[in-house]
């Protein structure tokens, strides 16, 4: 069974009624009970929205409704069917969607109550929702406008020329080691690597050695295994080099080649051996 799920049109130009999904060419507004929609597909669909206001705007737009005159009952019904669908598919519902559902339900219930002699200054229960929808819509439009502005890297290319030969070379920024360490700590705490990242346990000397071994392999296509070890470094140096080699094998950075048992082992950059 094939299923297509439609997101909002990127340009937002299309306003025609769109079914939720097309199954074997048949438009479908709610999925039959036995239909299995891959949750991934629905997630993709929902991710196309920036939140409940965006979804509501889409529901309004696709029926060519004026925001100022939302038929609350109809919109609520459609909105709730989306929520039901998400529940059926056991998607985690973002709290914002549920809050919006509650708001819609509240507006609807207020509108259903008979109003004895409607007074002039009684506020339309939809007013707050309409205000929010309008407010959101104008910034949604503003975002599109900003995206359409010519910008550096896309349409605008600032130019420069080589500075003239000068007595003193332009000063490069100075960096204190402290700054570097603070930056690293910042990144670590953000990525929460203090607690999770196993690679952090590797001694730095191994990582440094990995770079040095790669450097050697860049200089020559094949390097004999034993040439990477320096006796002068002592046992620790040998272990560090060996760990670096193992780590790089695991990470697909290098290949080991041995033509036959007991023949010399060669290292090469990964992928280079076959060339």
């Amino acid at each position, binding site marked *: 069974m094939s299923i297509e799920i439609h997101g909002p049109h990127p340009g937002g130009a299309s306003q025609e009624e769109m079914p939720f999904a097309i199954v074997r060419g048949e438009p479908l507004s709610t999925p039959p009970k036995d239909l299995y929609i891959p949750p991934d597909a629905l997630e993709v669909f929902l991710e196309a929205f920036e939140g409940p206001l965006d979804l509501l705007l889409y529901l309004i737009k696709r029926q060519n409704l004026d925001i100022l005159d939302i038929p609350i*009952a109809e919109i609520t019904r459609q909105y709730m069917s989306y929520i039901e669908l998400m529940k059926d598919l056991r998607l985690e519902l973002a709290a914002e969607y549920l809050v919006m559902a509650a708001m819609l339900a509240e507006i609807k219930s207020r509108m259903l109550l008979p109003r004895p002699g409607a007074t002039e200054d009684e506020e339309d229960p939809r007013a707050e929702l309409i205000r929010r929808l309008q407010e959101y819509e104008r910034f949604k439009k503003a975002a599109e406008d900003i995206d359409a502005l010519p910008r550096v890297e896309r349409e605008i290319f600032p130019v420069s020329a080589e500075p003239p030969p000068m007595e003193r070379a332009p000063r490069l920024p100075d960096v204190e080691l402290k700054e570097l360490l603070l930056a690293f700590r910042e990144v670590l705490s953000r990525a929460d690597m203090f607690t999770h990242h196993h690679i952090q346990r590797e001694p730095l000397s191994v990582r440094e050695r990995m770079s040095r071994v790669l450097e050697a392999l860049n200089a020559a296509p094949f390097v004999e295994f034993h040439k990477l070890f320096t006796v002068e470094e002592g046992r620790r140096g040998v272990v560090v080099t060996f760990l670096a080699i193992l780590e790089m094998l695991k990470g697909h950075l290098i290949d080991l080649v041995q033509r036959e048992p007991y023949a010399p082992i060669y290292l090469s950059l990964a992928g280079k051996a076959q060339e």
Partner: protein
Amino acid sequence: MDTELLKKIIEGALLAANRPLSLEQLEKLFEEGERPDRGAIRDALKQLGEDCEGRGYELKEVGSGFRFQVRETVAPWVSRLWEEKPPRYTRALLETLALIAYRQPITRAEIEEIRGVAVSTQIVKTLTEREWVRVVGHRDVPGRPALFGTTRQFLDYFNLKTLDELPTLAELRDLDKLHPELDLDGPGEGVGGKPAVEEEAVESTAPDAGEVAMQADDVQPPEEELPRNAEGHTLQ
């Protein structure tokens, strides 16, 4: 200082600097004694802009000053210098940026209120790191939330001289246009697909009442909120 030399110095500095230069920065190229007055620098800039006509680049004034940039007519060829595609920004990021640009200074909570969803930390970080947005202060309420505003670099990046050059924001339409007599909805199928018995109580029975309301002519053309700056800002 003779005008030709002044022009050459400014031209050379703008090209060597690799960033926009303000009038103040251009003034500082000269020792106290020889410093031309600001009018002379402005004149030189104007002439440099005119000299560029017919060349592959133009002089442009953006947020943080003056810069030379490739003319848009030859940009399609020049862009082939880079293999990487220019970065694309998500709607969430652009909406957040738009709110900060048009509503600054604004707190994160205020952005979330309008967008109806949480603003991810990642977005704030990206905007800050690109130096488009910065904390311009703190609102004096409990928690002292940060207030965000845009930077000169934001203007530079989007080829703008001032915020006035941003596209105008659509005007909010008037809620008073809602007709109280049209605001009752027709009976729908109820919430969540279940029949809603209570809707029987409503007087309106026309299933299309919503459609009628929908077509009521409330649409107003969006009005311009900010006066658009009529002058172009390219110096030429």
